[in-house]
């Protein structure tokens, strides 16, 4: 992940990037102290805050997972890794993992693809841009309580709207709360409803930073819109794509609210059809008071997520390097770089460096 999220993407840009700070170092009179300490200073708020509100809970959870521990009664005997072996020996855990992965795949994959397409459409020179852009974010403002109520009504097995619509086109009612796979589809659609527009806006922000003349040049070259999408848009928003995929993965594997709201009991169905790992965790900790075991599940889930993040990272890199389009993108990048250097030179000649500093994103002609 480290190399992934750091800026250098190919051999050529890397040497470029690496040179940058050194230039700064010897060219100007600024104190070395400023240069050395600032980066740490800038990231310190996150880490300081994390130390207070994140690290303690994390370590506490780890400590709890090694003990017999009741939610109310507190610490019991030290049991080593017994909680982990217990959880791993439970069919409920594996079932929950299966459900989680199924819902995760049914939500994340279509969500990212649709978000990308919607973002590209929003990036076009639409009339009434504000309306469209804000419109896709509407699902995000609806309070969870309303989302839960609306969807449980829509997906009700007997009286629900979806089944009656299906009935009108001659399809038998689907057991949304009976069949495991059907329940996964219903829950995934709740997730997709809430997050697709959100991710589309995130991708849109990245697309807006793509210099417009790259498209102009491609148009002059006779590239179709579809081709431009794949050879310019997608490669140029790659860091943000990685961001979207990674956060959707993390969020998808931690999915809790939607399955919990899916019925009135909130524990994942009478046969655990939609019991996810976090629901299982909640059930262990809050219903059964077995906080030690719940903590073990939390840590296992944490490891699974890390595993998926690594896998994700590996796959995206594989796909990217196999894609010859990315070479085109790299060339385009070099072009941008050249042009901004050009611009920077001009900037240097002006008196106030601060003013045109915002120039690179201005390249967007809108």
């Amino acid at each position, binding site marked *: 992940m480290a190399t992934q999220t750091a800026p250098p993407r190919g051999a050529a840009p890397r040497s470029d990037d690496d040179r940058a700070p050194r230039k700064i170092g010897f060219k100007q009179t600024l104190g070395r102290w400023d240069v050395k300490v600032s980066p740490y200073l800038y990231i310190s708020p996150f880490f300081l805050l994390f130390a207070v509100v994140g690290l303690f809970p994390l370590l506490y959870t780890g400590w709890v997972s090694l003990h017999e521990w009741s939610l109310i009664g507190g610490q019991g005997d030290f049991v080593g890794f017994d909680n982990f072996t217990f959880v791993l020996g439970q069919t409920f855990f594996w079932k929950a993992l299966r459900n989680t992965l199924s819902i995760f795949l049914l939500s994340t994959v279509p969500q990212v693809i649709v978000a990308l397409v919607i973002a590209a459409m929003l990036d076009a020179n639409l009339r009434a841009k504000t309306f469209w852009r804000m419109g896709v974010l509407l699902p995000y403002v609806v309070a969870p309580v309303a989302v839960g109520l609306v969807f449980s009504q829509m997906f009700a097995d007997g009286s629900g709207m979806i089944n009656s619509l299906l009935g009108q086109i001659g399809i038998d009612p689907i057991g949304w709360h009976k069949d495991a796979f059907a329940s996964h589809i219903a829950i995934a659609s709740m997730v997709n409803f809430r997050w697709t527009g959100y991710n589309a806006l995130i991708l849109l922000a990245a697309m807006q930073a793509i210099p417009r003349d790259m498209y102009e040049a491609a148009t002059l070259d006779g590239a179709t819109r579809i081709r431009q999408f794949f050879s310019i848009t997608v490669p140029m928003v790659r860091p943000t794509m990685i961001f979207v995929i990674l956060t959707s993965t993390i969020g998808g594997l931690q999915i809790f609210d939607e399955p919990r709201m899916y019925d009135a009991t909130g524990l994942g169905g009478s046969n655990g059809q939609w019991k996810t790992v976090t629901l299982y965790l909640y059930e262990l900790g809050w*219903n059964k008071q077995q906080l030690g075991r719940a903590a073990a599940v939390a840590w296992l889930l944490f490891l699974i997520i890390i595993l998926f993040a690594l896998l994700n990272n590996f796959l995206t890199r594989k796909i990217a390097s196999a894609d010859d389009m990315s070479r085109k993108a790299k060339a385009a990048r070099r072009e941008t770089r050249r042009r901004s250097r050009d611009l920077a030179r001009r900037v240097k000649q002006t008196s106030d460096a601060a003013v045109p500093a915002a120039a690179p994103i201005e390249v967007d002609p809108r």
Partner: protein
Amino acid sequence: MRRSTRKTWVAVAGAASVALLATACGGGSDDAAGDGDSDGQITLTISTFNQFGYEDLLKQYEEEHPNIKIEHNKFGKSDDAKEQFQTALGAGSGLADVVGVEVDWLPQMIQYSDQFTDLTSDSVEGRWNKWTTDQATTPDGALLGYPTDIGPEAIAYRSDLFAAAGLPTDREAVAELFGGDDATWEDFFAVGDQFMAAGTGPAFFDSADALAQGWINQVEVPFEDPDSGEIIALDNPDIREIYDTILSHEDQSAGLKQWEADWTSAFQSDAFAVALAPAWFLGNIEGNSAGVEGWDIANVFPGGGGNWGGSFLAVPTMSKHPKEAQELADWLTAPEQQLAAFAVNGNFPSQIEAQQSDELQGMTREFFNDAPTGQIYTDRAAAISVAPYKGENYFTIRSGLSDAFNRVDVDKSMTPEESWKGFEDAVAAIG
């Protein structure tokens, strides 16, 4: 120009954050730890959920006790309150001085009884029936909560659907039909067979699991041995009988799960004719059945009497003012005050004296064909003799059994035998 605007912004942001830190966030609410009682002035906090109906009562108490100020922390649903309750207990601080708890939380409280004050007192002697206080009493005899209200059960039925099936409709006759004072579950299902035989369309009852709840509430020792704590649910013949009997009458069930959307809308589609009805349940029937006529209540219950639900007031040991808190809880749960609360929220009071009051006795409910609900539920409350023993694993086992019923009754994905195996797995997983 630019520079100065920026500076202004920084200054504004800085000033705002300081001001914020200093004042805005506290909201004037000191928690239990912070209140000083130098001049004898103390602040008590009380937390409730749903509708305890205490707003006016608390004001009255403050007027009568000038040295006491009360802060009322109201939660919406009991689940919200329960999450806060558990978190605060787990963290070892942060509970109110007087905590409203649901009957369902008592097993946990009894398990950690050292966290709660023993409220045994002469002043509440004889206020409640023994079975009521037994629910909140530890094996050592400590009383952890004062009961506020209870949920005695009767049978609610649709007189119009009964008429269509050729059954009696008058509430006294229906009570007789179900077996009157000696009503049994066998009688209940016999009426069901009669109803179904008429073939009018609707099912007899709403949910197998709801019947199970009503029945289990009559079993003194359902799942766990009170002495050894051992789980006996799987070997308990009573439980197996409940399971087999109810599911063998699956043909009478509408196959719904309570509180789900399908169940709610079934009130409008004449899907069933009978529901077990604790006192607090009437509002639900009435709300879901808007526009439907014919609901009535019969003064009868299979197996005699049973209690479903109810709440208590407890005083956690983390309270800084346990004595004053106990006094407040005592006062609030006195018959007079609970009658006042009843007038607000309609929850059936648990106090013997309150139940016998004229006010309660004279009460009727228009939607249920003017049924004398006060009288009916007083009778139903008097018929209750036991409350089931609930050990630390009661709810895990109960929800496992619930799932077992619903797999057969609602999902129809398993035979009763297969589903019972699933229940065995769920019990085994308690480990």
